[in-house]
């Protein structure tokens, strides 16, 4: 590919005013949210699956998982919330792969709109979707005995930490979505990334119950740090450095992944 295709010309900088960039981003974010609710399988994937996870671990596996310091349901629900927001960011990959496959990205590129609105509108819609899922899982959690004692504002802070993390991660999935030939492949490509991050972590069990060889990874990887931060804030337990570490990971991830996704976007279609 020649480098001319990657050039961002001065003309674009001048004419794509900030105002249009915001309005274009919101137009596409609204469209993405609207279509989300029209795909039944997507709603099931987004809403039902995490609820099943809560019930499965609360009632089936929970009895076999020892936890020090609190009940398993209190340990579990913050972890499930983190897992769910990360799974939610996979939607970024699926949505962009679909738009690309259907030729919509090509159409957008020939319109006098802010080009970055395609990625912005997608990732913002996926944050909004994650907010909805957080509310639902919180309600289900309370129904099955989740009793956080960290206070309302710490709960909100915890939600913010994981939403920021999932948002930053979604730029990596944007790259995946723009690279995959279709949405099914995009989804499949995210699994090898998501699986070790969410399961080789402290989401479901404490570190001491993981095999020794796994612990260094499980303890230091960003999802565990985020889960520690979220759990500590929600349950009113000491969080140590985990909040800052999680936020640092977020900043680091977006700094690396967003330019990759943007570069990929300019070459795509």
């Amino acid at each position, binding site marked *: 590919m020649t480098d001319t295709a990657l050039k961002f010309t001065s*003309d674009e900088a001048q004419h794509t005013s900030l105002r249009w960039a915001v309005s274009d981003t919101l137009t596409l974010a609204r469209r993405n949210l609207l279509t989300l609710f029209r795909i039944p399988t997507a709603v099931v994937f987004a809403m039902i699956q995490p609820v099943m996870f809560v019930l499965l671990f609360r009632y089936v596996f929970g009895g076999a998982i020892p936890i020090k310091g609190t009940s398993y349901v209190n340990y579990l629900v913050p972890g499930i919330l983190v897992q769910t927001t990360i799974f939610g960011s996979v939607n970024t990959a699926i949505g962009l792969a679909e738009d690309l496959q*259907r030729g919509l990205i090509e159409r957008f*590129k*020939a*319109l006098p709109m802010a080009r970055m609105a395609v990625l912005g509108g997608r990732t913002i819609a996926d944050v909004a979707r994650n907010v909805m899922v957080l509310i639902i899982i919180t309600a289900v959690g309370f129904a099955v005995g989740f009793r956080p004692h960290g206070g309302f504002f710490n709960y909100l802070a915890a939600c913010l930490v994981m939403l920021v993390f999932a948002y930053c991660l979604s730029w990596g999935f944007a790259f995946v979505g723009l690279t995959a030939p279709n949405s099914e492949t995009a989804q499949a490509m995210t699994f090898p990334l998501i699986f070790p991050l969410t399961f080789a972590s402290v989401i479901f069990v404490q570190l001491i119950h993981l095999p020794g060889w796994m612990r260094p990874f499980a303890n230091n990887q960003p999802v565990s740090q985020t889960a520690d931060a979220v759990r500590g804030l929600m349950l009113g337990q000491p969080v140590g450095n985990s909040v800052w570490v999680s936020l640092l990971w977020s900043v680091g991830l977006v700094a690396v992944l967003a330019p990759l996704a943007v570069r990929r976007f300019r070459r795509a279609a």
Partner: protein
Amino acid sequence: MSQFAVEATNIVRTFHDGSFRALDDVTLRVPTGEVFGLLGPNGSGKTTMVRILSTILFPTEGVATVAGYDVVKNPNQVRRHIGLAGQFAAVDENLTGFENLRMVGFLNHMAKPHAVTRSRELLEEFGLADFGNKLAKTYSGGMRRRLDLAAALVANPPILFLDEPTTGLDPQSRQDLWAIIEGLVEGGTTVLLTTQYLEEADRLCKQLVVLDHGKIIAEGTSSQLKSRLGNTVLVLTFGSTDQASLGAGLIANLSPKAPNVDGTVIELTVDSGPAAAADALRRIDAAGIVLVGLQLREPSLDDVFLNLTGHKAEDATTAEAEPTSRRSRRGAKV
């Protein structure tokens, strides 16, 4: 607007680090207010050209202006003057027809009431008014194409790029779309369309460029291209392939062009139909062969294409398809 809505000069576009030349020194001028045809088989570079002119791809070499604006230096100005309808109906299946058009209106920075009125107007114009509130995924192939074309027209662009607008459509939908395109041109729109259907180019396009493997192999009006072949095609049908090949030898010197034998049918382009037909009949009769059929017809662009490239246009799935692999992996052409 100047005399030419689109001017592309010495356009080269390479892929795979220069190892594949999708466009090789293509120059074309599209007069304002006309339908201009880019004709060629799959992989000839038509889509690459449309993508360059609609600012989706940059040319590797060469200069192109659309509505007077350089596609590399002023892409946003170009985008304000063009509409693009691609080979694959690029509509959001999970939005209604109306929502699709309104979204494009918003992305063209139209005010909300204007975007709404314009969307309703287009649905009406394209026979989709009754389906405006239905999801696009419930639309038939022809309806999707019409919606896609409507989406390209939301901002009333003076220049329209249509990339194989009727590929995969049934004959009736194709006729409908042709009528729509003719209506647009009457209204002053300049249209550049790509097609591999010679009938389509013949019907719609005033001027044509024929592309093969990224190069222009012929240009001119449809009748100029046809006249390069002679005036009439003599079609003879024999009872067997043996007789046909025998017959081909008998009539070969009736025309400077070689006869084209396809099974039991021989086609020969000749200057004077009746004289050639009489001559052919005499020779075949003298050889004791009985003809099954004889026909004289005007040459079609198919004949032109066969003559220029040595292969037919529509079965020319060439080895070197455009490296737009994603396209080929897309779902069914609607």
